[in-house]
């Protein structure tokens, strides 16, 4: 049943957000700490566990797959409700602070990704990736 997949996704989502809130409260951060990330890790574990026991038929997977595929349209809808007017009115402080941090971070991403590139591109690595995809 397709709903089993969606329900599994929903349970992981709720549990993850709850644990994120709990973590935030414990740390005194007044916000959710990594709730979505925790939910993602739960879903990955659930998939591996169910797969091993053969409890993950294609129908069930579709119940999750559909929502994963809806991701880009949802992001477009999200973009359509950003406070773009306020962002543009923020003036030079907002624009410069944002631009500066984007540029600094972009350089960092580029440096880190360049620096450790060879390690991910080696042959055994590629084989492991193929093997991982087969599982």
């Amino acid at each position, binding site marked *: 049943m397709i709903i089993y997949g969606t329900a599994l996704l929903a349970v992981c989502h709720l549990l993850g957000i709850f644990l994120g809130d709990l973590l935030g409260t414990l740390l005194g951060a007044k*916000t959710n700490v990594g709730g*979505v990330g925790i939910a993602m890790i739960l879903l990955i574990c659930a998939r591996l566990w169910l797969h091993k026991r053969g409890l993950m038929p294609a129908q069930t997977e579709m119940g999750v797959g559909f929502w994963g595929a809806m991701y880009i349209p949802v992001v477009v809808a999200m973009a359509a409700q950003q406070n773009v007017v306020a962002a*543009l009115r923020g003036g030079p402080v907002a624009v410069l602070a944002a631009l500066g941090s984007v540029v600094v971070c972009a350089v960092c991403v580029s440096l880190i990704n360049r620096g450790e590139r060879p390690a991910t591109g080696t042959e055994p690595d590629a084989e492991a990736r193929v093997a991982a995809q087969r599982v």
Partner: protein
Amino acid sequence: MLELLEKTVKHNGLVLAFALVGFVMIVSMQLSRRLTFGRVHGSAIAILIGLGLAYWGGIQTGGQKGLADVSLFAGVGLMGGAMLRDFAIVATAFEVQVEEAKKAGLVGVVALLLGTVLPFIVGASVAWAFGYRDAISMTTIGAGAVTYIVGPVTGAAIGASSELMALSIATGLVKAIMVMVGTPIAARFLRLSTPRSAMVFGGLAGTVSGVSAGLAATDRKLVPYGALVATFHTGLGCLLGPSLLYFAVRALVG
């Protein structure tokens, strides 16, 4: 007749949003193929159109939620709201290759820390340069440069004025939009091609919305890896902003 149509649409907001976004996607895919010969990803164009619609909505209504403030398109607010966005992001975790994610573990953490501290320093410095020289102002604007959620959460915690909070939200929003639009353009410079590189990017670029939209417009397969790390970004920022970072700024400027 027209009133009847309006009633139908208003009572089925979410369904209208599905149709509207579908239409935006068709237009974007065609523009991508015909105008740019596939060089600019259709999703990137769709996100730009979305931002354009948000601007139009903001001008029309004077509200804060872009197109979703236009009563006819309120459903867009539900479709693109935090609930469905997070639901869809979690669903993408289904495609994560565990081995790939493990490899980036430590680098992801380093990227997260850098992604919080570096934008904060830049934001606080810009604030200082523009004459905001007290610790509260510098911290609030610096936190806004981390993400637009970290800004107001930090500001509220340390007692910043609402004008400062608005400025810090604006900083975070401009950053998110820059990441959304700039990522596909800078993808080659950023070496965004492997799951690991996406996780580094997710940690450093911050803002779940910016990262997820930027990666979606670059390579759909990279989204879950970036989002997995980016989701810890706001939490970490809200944790460090009003505490460690604020104390550091206060120690520096008194």
